[in-house]
């Protein structure tokens, strides 16, 4: 019995200590791997990667190597349910063949990149290539480099990525964007290679209704008022103007539609080199007053605060709504066929961004930065083959690589008609009934992003309807270039402070916007709100943005 007692005690003690050991061991494994920071500033020491071709000049593809690189990336939503992993995707199979570098893929479930990145970093199992939006990394890309996680790429690009180097030299504005404030390159970027690719959102309106009513496409705020009124009274539209309310109320107005007519935006913007915050400015008050009037008169959907995409679908297909602000794809592309099924005459077209006075040029509009957050690929600091990685990634920026990433395989996914690469029926009218988005993503990366420069000839064909293509032209006619902030980054210390202010600020702005427009509070409460903004420290936030802007301009 005594012996049994002892065994029991011993057992308990052992288990407890086991647990402690486990904890100690597992927590230690994360620290050293982060602590072993190879020097990032000197060229990587691993000399075992066998790369043929001239040393610092161009490399000939396919590269002769038997080194396999590990590639960590999310599986695009377009392929979910179609392919189980990147190994099965024709594009990636062909990519390995063309570059000559075998790749081992770590496929991250769609939408789960953030959690998986954290977990991957903590585990210490680092791949060679990481495709992730490092602008979103806490503290910014500069921190990712200085914390020893990804490599500073300046030397690598200089010596082993001649194609990218050439592109950046030819496009200094883009070069500025893809560097950090300290002048470090941190990833092989995804670039929208043409202005045409950067605009895709704006006001949309039912042309057939306009024709029936004998009205032109509205350009000024007053014209919009008359038009919406006519929609309501003569077309029986219960919600002539509707807008998605999530994640923020009047969501797409954040890109400048309607608000811009009053010379402001809903967020930070530039005026003569100075950073300003829209909701503080008197122009915003006028915008609120205008929309409030429209709401009162029933020109705006009564349920405006709760609308989501599903409600918008219902609104359009039942003829309750005649105008909104949306994307060419998610808006025109989606609702046009829906409407056409019920009413063959229905036609959705793009309307220009509204202005106050006829003939003015719109103050602001939607336009993505050429350096787009998705699709960038970094090389991890613990990779043993950084030059090979750089060379492999550089392929995307070479002439054949450019065609491959954008259009796929000649003869399979596209054919050349003269100089113009035309997508084949396999992609546009897939015999297995797959949606274009799904097939495009199997053979190209044009429709979701990646380490390459996007070609405008992709979107010219991807957009099926004429109205969609015309929309891009119409929506590009704005002064957004003069007023949009470039992609500035606050310093790591400032960014925590900024984030705190911003959350409180966005909450306040959204509340103010809705309450005044819905009529819950009078327009004159605007000044009150501005006072509140000041107590939330909006001035400090503007300061931070201004400093970031000044640093950006000096890059």
């Amino acid at each position: 019995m005594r012996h049994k007692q002892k065994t029991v005690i011993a057992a308990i003690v052992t288990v407890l200590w086991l647990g402690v050991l486990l904890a100690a061991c597992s927590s230690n494994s994360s620290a050293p791997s982060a602590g072993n920071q190879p020097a990032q500033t000197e060229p990587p020491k691993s000399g075992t990667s066998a790369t043929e071709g001239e040393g610092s000049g161009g490399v000939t593809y396919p590269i002769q190597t038997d080194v396999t690189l590990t590639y960590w990336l999310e599986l695009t939503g377009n392929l979910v349910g179609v392919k189980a992993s990147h190994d099965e995707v024709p594009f990636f199979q062909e990519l390995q063949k063309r570059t000559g570098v075998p790749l081992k893929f770590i496929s991250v479930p769609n939408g789960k990149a953030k959690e998986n990145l954290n977990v991957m970093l903590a585990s210490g199992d680092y791949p060679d290539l990481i495709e992730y939006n490092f602008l979103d990394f806490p503290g910014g890309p500069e921190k990712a480099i200085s914390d020893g996680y990804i490599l500073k790429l300046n030397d690598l690009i200089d010596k082993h990525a001649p194609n990218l180097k050439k592109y950046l030299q030819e496009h200094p504005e883009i070069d500025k964007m893809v560097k950090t404030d300290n002048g470090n390159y941190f990833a092989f970027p995804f670039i929208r290679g043409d202005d045409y690719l950067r605009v895709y959102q704006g006001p949309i309106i039912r042309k057939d209704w306009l024709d029936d009513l004998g009205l032109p496409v509205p350009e000024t705020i007053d014209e919009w008022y008359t038009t919406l009124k006519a929609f309501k009274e003569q077309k029986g539209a219960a919600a002539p103007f509707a807008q998605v309310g999530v994640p923020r109320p009047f969501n797409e107005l954040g890109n400048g539609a309607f608000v811009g007519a009053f010379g402001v935006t809903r967020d930070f913007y530039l005026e003569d080199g100075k950073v300003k915050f829209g909701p503080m400015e008197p122009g915003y008050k006028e915008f609120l007053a205008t929309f409030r009037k429209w709401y009162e008169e029933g020109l705006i959907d009564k349920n405006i605060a709760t609308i989501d995409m599903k409600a918008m679908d219902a609104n359009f297909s039942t003829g309750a709504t005649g105008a909104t602000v949306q994307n060419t794809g998610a808006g025109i592309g989606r609702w046009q066929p829906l409407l056409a099924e019920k009413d063959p005459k229905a036609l959705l077209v793009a309307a220009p961004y509204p202005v106050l006075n006829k003939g003015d040029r719109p103050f602001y509009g939607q336009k993505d930065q050429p350096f787009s957050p998705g699709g960038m690929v970094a090389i991890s600091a613990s990779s043993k083959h950084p030059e090979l990685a750089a060379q492999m990634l550089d392929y995307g920026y070479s002439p054949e690589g450019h065609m491959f990433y954008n259009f796929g395989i000649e003869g399979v996914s596209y054919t050349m008609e003269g100089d113009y690469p035309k997508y084949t029926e396999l992609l546009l009218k897939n015999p297995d009934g797959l949606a274009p988005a799904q097939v495009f993503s199997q053979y190209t990366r044009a429709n979701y992003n990646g380490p390459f420069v996007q070609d405008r000839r992709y979107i010219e064909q991807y957009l099926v309807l004429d109205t969609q293509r015309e929309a891009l032209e119409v929506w590009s006619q704005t002064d957004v270039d003069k007023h949009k902030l470039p992609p500035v980054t606050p310093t790591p210390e400032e960014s925590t402070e900024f984030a705190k202010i911003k959350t409180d600020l966005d909450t306040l702005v959204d509340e103010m916007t809705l309450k005044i427009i819905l009529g819950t509070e009078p327009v004159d409460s605007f000044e009150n709100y501005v006072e509140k903004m000041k107590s939330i420290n909006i001035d400090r936030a503007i300061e931070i943005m201004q400093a970031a802007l000044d640093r950006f301009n000096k890059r």
Partner: protein
Amino acid sequence: MAKNTPVEPLPSVPVRRSSFSARFIRDFALNKHLYLMMIPVIAYYFIFHYAPMYGAVIAFKEYSPARGILGSEWVGFAHFNDFFTSYYFWRILKNTVIISLLTLCFEFPTPIILALLINEVRNQVFKRTVQTITYMPYFISLVVICGMIKDFTNAGGIINNLFTYLGYDGNAMLQKPELFRPIYVLSEIWQRIGWESIIYIAALMSIDPEQYEAARMDGANRLQQMWYITLPGILPVIVIMFILRMGNLLNVGFEKIILLYNPAIYETADVISSFVYRKGLLEFGWSYSSAVGLFNSVINLMLLIAANYISRKVNDTSLW
């Protein structure tokens, strides 16, 4: 000293030697098999709950994924400070507490009432049917449920129309701050009443039918039987559930709030978890949400201890 005397259930004779080690050894002799049985459970908690607990320090650090938790920079109470000095701190705290208390007050009793009602049903088929159907909303995805709620309460929606007929002004109900809490609580009842009644129904099974017989002979009607027999019979379960609920007071889950709210009703709908969620969208913020979580946990734990203490004094059901 540790003689292997035959084990006795309850020492009703005061023991002379009351030193700790003596009690310890006696207790061990008495209960060693129990302790043996407990080993797997304790080991489980140790390995999977206590071993990872060091991660809670992330609330006091500026977390950098590359440096890991232990290697990240120490910032002390900076995140807590951020949270407490937020412009909206008092508002979100107030909303969280109010919504929680309202739910406790109105939603908590409903499964109990349902269990009592079901218990009274004689017809087995009806009984089974009611049980099976009433718990279904719990399983339907929250996105669908909230979609329905919005649909019904929007201008032109069924519930909205009903109230408009009775004099309501017809605006979307989820755009009015004063209507959010009732809508939230009522929909909680809708979703949870069936599921949460299950445990009470199970508890009802253990009540001796003879007690009912006796009561009926004394002339008690159904309502009285319910009050004097059934309810006390499941009181221990009710109390425990109540205490556990108190320990969750600050945990108003954000998923449903986010699906139902919008800035027009932030003043009553924005709670701690939804606010932190919006903040998390702006930056990685694991440290911040960890800090807030820690704050929540501390308050919840204190509430639990208080509830348990009061319960122990008032009746003899308590967690410890």
